[in-house]
């Protein structure tokens, strides 16, 4: 008996010793889900947004992961679904879950994301690469939900810092009618308070005329005020905002969702090796990389970076690694990116761009923070109720 158990023990040890060799082939499967609700008709439909924004970024990151993986015996495969309805997105998610996937990148509205997170169960890791809603980072957090897409407040804080350091502190705010517009504008109100900006006029956009014919007549009247340093536009879907620049009552710059914008990513970003990422993306997708692509890319690369070091695709281990001191993502923004441990948001610099050039990159010198200067953008630990790591 004792001989037998000893043999069994020896066998076990032999197997355990053999494991690292076998473990050298690790197959990692990641799910990508996309559902973008119809934005409704917009006035400015001259340059349509790509349908595969996000998906292509995930695909590129999978290629990047695979190239690294081939030196380590790790293979990667992406299962993706671009759904037409919320129901279809949820159904696709459940199918993927049943087939054993537990690592997901989701580009969908906050409400869909919440449904998926609830359905996901404990041993799943979801990356939000689409929803910018601040509520997901301040109160409605989930332990297994990380965000690679910056929040509205990160974007507006970048703009607020820039306006502050330019001393353009009196602004005229125009807010569109959608929920997203209000979300952006609310975030900007908060940024204005943080960075000492005065909103001298706060006007909702209510006009329903076709501005391609009448912008030059309507907007000067709409933006009449005694004085302001800049006009800030909150028009997330790009309905009327494109017609504001050069049509303001006073000769002032336009910033916000149009004009000069704080963005996650843009084709004009080229420093810190970004030119190479842009080239690789263009070769893969035949178009320029945008913010959704970048958010999906950073999500899949975060997973890959963890797996390179861990040689394991366990969601729990990956999650632990991503919140540890070991994790740092090289993501072409000139700084190492890490996740905020209170709400799972990926810290990152925010480029401020106009359509053909980079204007600046937040955070700016002089805005101080005891831990990370990048935490001057968005909801800092004391401002968020979330404590997803206890």
């Amino acid at each position, binding site marked *: 008996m004792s001989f037998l158990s000893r043999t069994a023990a020896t066998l076990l040890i032999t197997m355990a010793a053999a494991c690292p060799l076998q473990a050298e082939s690790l197959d990692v499967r990641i799910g990508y889900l996309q559902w973008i609700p119809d934005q409704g008709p917009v006035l400015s439909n001259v340059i349509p947004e790509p349908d595969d924004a996000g998906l292509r970024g995930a695909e590129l990151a999978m290629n990047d992961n695979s190239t690294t993986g081939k030196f380590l015996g790790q293979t990667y495969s992406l299962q993706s679904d671009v759904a037409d309805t919320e129901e279809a997105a949820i159904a696709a998610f459940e199918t993927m879950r049943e087939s054993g996937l537990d690592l997901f990148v989701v580009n969908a509205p906050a409400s869909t994301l919440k449904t998926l997170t609830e359905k996901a169960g404990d041993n799943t890791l979801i990356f939000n690469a689409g929803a910018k809603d601040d509520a997901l980072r301040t109160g409605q957090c989930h332990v297994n939900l990380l965000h690679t897409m910056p929040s509205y407040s990160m974007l507006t804080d970048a703009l607020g810092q820039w306006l502050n350091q330019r001393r353009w502190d009196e602004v005229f705010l125009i807010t569109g009618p959608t929920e997203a517009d209000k979300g952006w504008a609310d975030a900007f109100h908060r940024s204005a308070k943080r960075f000492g900006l005065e909103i001298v006029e706060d006007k909702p956009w209510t006009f329903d005329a076709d501005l391609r014919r009448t912008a030059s007549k309507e907007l000067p009247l709409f933006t009449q005020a005694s004085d302001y340093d800049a006009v800030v536009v909150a028009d997330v879907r790009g309905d009327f905002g494109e017609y504001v620049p050069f049509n303001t009552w006073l000769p002032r710059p336009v910033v916000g969702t149009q004009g000069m914008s704080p963005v996650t990513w843009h084709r004009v970003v080229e420093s810190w090796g970004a030119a190479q990422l842009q080239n690789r993306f263009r070769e893969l997708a035949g178009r320029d990389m945008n913010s959704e692509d970048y958010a999906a890319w950073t999500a899949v690369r975060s997973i890959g970076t963890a797996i*390179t070091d861990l040689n394991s695709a366990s969601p729990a281990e990956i999650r632990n690694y991503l919140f540890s001191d070991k994790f*740092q993502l090289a993501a072409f923004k000139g700084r190492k990116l890490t996740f905020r441990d209170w709400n799972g948001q990926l810290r990152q610099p925010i480029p401020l761009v106009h359509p053909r050039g980079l204007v600046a990159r937040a955070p700016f010198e002089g805005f101080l923070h005891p831990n990370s200067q990048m935490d001057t953008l968005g909801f800092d630990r004391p401002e968020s109720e979330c404590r997803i790591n206890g």
Partner: protein
Amino acid sequence: MKTLIKRAALATMIGLSTPTLASVAYVSNEKDNTLSVIDTETQKVIETIDVGQRPRGILLSKDYTKLYICASDDDTVQVLDLATRKIVDTLPSGEDPEQFALHPNNKHLYIANEDDAIVTVVDVDSKEVLAQIDVGIEPEGMAVSPNGKWAVNTSETTSMLHWINTETFEIEKNIVVGQRPRHVEFSKDSKTAWASAEIGGTVHIIDVENLEQIHEMSFKVPGVNQDRVQPVGIELTSDGKYAFVALGPSNHVAVVDAKTYEVLDYLLVGARVWQLDLDKDETHLYTTNGVSGDVSVINLEDMKVIKSIKVGRYPWGVVIDPTS
């Protein structure tokens, strides 16, 4: 009229005299498509040479008669004849060559093709491509050990050092290092290799015999935010005493005791310091500062920055011709 003739005569004289007289440093200007030629005696730019698009890595042939230039956006390596300072030839390089290294045999050029995730090996005499080796994403740093045994490539997004056997052109070992490894420098005795990781903020010292990391360095520049401390270029003195590490956007160069790995000092140079080279008697170190568009000169005797020299836009690489 008289002054014009005088000026022309003077220009001719300068034009004739420069290639033979002074000791010179060559600097590639990434966004100007030029090389700046610096007289290391007077520490002034004496000539600006038009080269291919987006010149980055530059190196000298082992007999110091030629300068090889990675013209990244032209997908080629250009050959500059040092006697005439004219581009005399081009080599096949694979796409988007960024950095390269020449084997001590003066024939085999190892080129990192950043966009293609390969290393191309070219025979500089026959212009034949001898091998293309698959490496990680965004191969960048390239070095060949002085004894000619190893070629090492760093891949930035894969964060690895790929050790290529120079006889078989095959990878024998991959070492995972900090995020975004940029540059590798061998000690003169080929016993250690120093690799910088830009985003990791680290320098990894590898024991070449066992291909294992023996030390990992990090840096703390007083008054500079830690995530701006980004090691890139490395230069080692041949007596094995010092290592210099360019720390990118922290705008400092670290002076390191190469035996104890202790940081002795941080020297303030221009903005976003990238690459480094020592002059022939190793009394001065030249640094390229990408954002401020200049070259800083450090005097090794007292470890002081003594001069900054304005060059072109985004100076990338610097090499000093020891024979000149």
